[in-house]
């Protein structure tokens, strides 16, 4: 019997081995290695300690990237969550038969590869043939320099991110809404609750866990976003829309300063770590409930 259990766990270990190898060599090792890389000088010959970090702290661009990353992630996640919640409610209101079609249309942005859809946005924002400005101008209003002006460029990257990510929230919230028992709403209706009270006292508490998991998860993904900013503005105008990922790419790969690039991307780590701890807590709580 002892032999059998030993054999069983050996087989189990072998089955999980490819997974362990992939995670160990291509995720864990690089993650730790980048900590080491960040302490080298540009030509990677000399250990310089925390000099790369103190160099970054003195650069204005770095603080701009910090600011922009935070504004970008927080604003985008907020609007994604809000739009997702609203749209999920509207879809949930529909008779069951028509829901599938609407859900299908509303999920399209999430299905198209972001690099491709951002190209469409880039063309919609085009300075001379902008399809948006054409509409404004046909109403007699002035066109907007969408990607040429720092404020509008920031607005544009956030808008595209919201467009891309809101469907994900919609689908998660829709799944959560379906799990709220209908009787609760009926009981509330008999008690004379209005829609706000229903939302405040039934829907939100019942969905709290899924809302927090989705928001935290999206915060990680948005904070680490690369595709949209890279394709839409490539960080411009004058580095105003860079987030950590795109600036790390510019510095590390294009600027050929691998240690500094590693250093920049490492700044994402604490935020990812904090979010991950909370997600894990919520996920295990959820597992405990079911």
């Amino acid at each position, binding site marked *: 019997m002892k032999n059998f259990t030993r054999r069983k766990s050996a087989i189990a270990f072998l089955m*999980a081995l490819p997974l362990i190898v992939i995670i160990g060599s*291509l995720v864990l090792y690089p993650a730790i290695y980048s900590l080491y890389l960040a302490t080298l000088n540009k030509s990677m010959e000399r250990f310089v300690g925390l000099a790369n970090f103190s160099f970054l702290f003195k650069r204005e661009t770095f603080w701009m990237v910090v600011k922009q990353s935070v504004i970008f992630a927080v604003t985008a996640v907020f609007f994604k969550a809000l739009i997702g919640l609203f749209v999920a409610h509207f879809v949930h209101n529909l008779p069951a038969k028509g829901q599938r079609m609407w859900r299908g249309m509303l999920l399209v942005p999430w*299905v198209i590869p972001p690099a491709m*859809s951002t190209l469409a946005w880039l063309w919609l924002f085009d300075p001379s043939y902008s399809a948006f400005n054409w509409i404004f101008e046909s109403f007699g209003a002035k066109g907007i320099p969408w990607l040429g002006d720092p404020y509008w460029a920031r607005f544009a990257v956030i808008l595209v991110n919201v467009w891309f990510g809101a469907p994900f929230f919609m689908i998660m919230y829709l799944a959560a809404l379906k799990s709220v028992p209908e009787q609760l709403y009926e009981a509330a209706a008999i008690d004379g609750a209005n829609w706000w009270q229903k939302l405040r006292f039934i829907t939100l508490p019942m969905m709290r866990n899924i809302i927090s998991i989705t928001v935290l998860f999206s915060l990680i993904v948005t904070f680490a976003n*690369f595709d949209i900013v890279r394709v839409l503005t490539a960080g411009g105008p004058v580095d105003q829309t860079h987030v950590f990922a795109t600036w790390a790419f510019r510095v590390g790969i294009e600027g050929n300063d691998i240690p500094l690039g590693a250093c920049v991307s490492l700044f994402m780590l604490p935020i990812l770590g904090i979010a991950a701890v909370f997600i894990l807590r919520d996920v295990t709580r959820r597992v405990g409930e079911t």
Partner: protein
Amino acid sequence: MATPAAATVPASRPGLGSMRSDRRRALYWSYFFLVLFVIFFLTPPLYMLITSLKTSAEISTGTNPWWVFSPTLQNYKELLTSPTYLTFFRNSAIVSVLVVTITMAVSILAAFSLSRMKFWGSATLATGVFLTYLIPETLLFIPLFKIFVFVQEWTGIELINHWWVLLILYPTLTVPFCTWIMIGYFSSIPKELDEAALIDGASYTQMLTKIFIPVALPGIIAATIFAFTVSWAQFLYPLAFTTSADQLVLPVGIITTLIKGDVFNWGQIMTGALLGAAPPLIIYAFLMDYYIAGLTAGATKG
């Protein structure tokens, strides 16, 4: 039972009529806002389609950009006969299909072992899989780049600038998520089922192929679609690790080769992007429910 009682309240009662009309009004508002959101969500893909049907001449005149006055399939014809574009498409297809195969093989085995056969550290590993899923590729591409350079210096194996290097990189994005949702699906299979099989003398391989894979098929389909979508859409890794035109995959290929200097050939770019977006869209049109099941399972299931 409170529900039927509420439903059979006589219609003469004042509150009920207004409740029904409230509901109808809520429905109309729902449709109204949903139409607005659908317009917002579908504008970019529709605009891709509109532009792809235009000639360069029509694009550069100041006419209404939202309408096609002289539709043409010229852009499609040119792209679908252009050897470079077909190379991107072929590279993307090969990479995605192989990544899906590798991912499913690795994650089904791992999920089976982690959900049913405990070994030392297996619980920690299951949590670790989920945490790995949260580490973004934007954190890893720089150390990986350096590691690949290092490997080349030491062994002579040239890892950078070959499409097949993506086969090593993409599984880091797909395997953790797929394993995670497969663990969820496998755990929901009743224990009695495999205990009975064990008593009947089934081996672990038989248990996996005869019970787990058939029963968890919806989860496997969801994971497959997810792995395909991720590897088809990935942009950062190919941008950092491949540069030669014959090694590029679609997203990077379109962006780096169709934009020549400051000249944007928008008709072709939009056609290329639309054709590049087509495979995931087609798969999703047929298998939407699995895709959604996979998405929602990922964040909610244990």
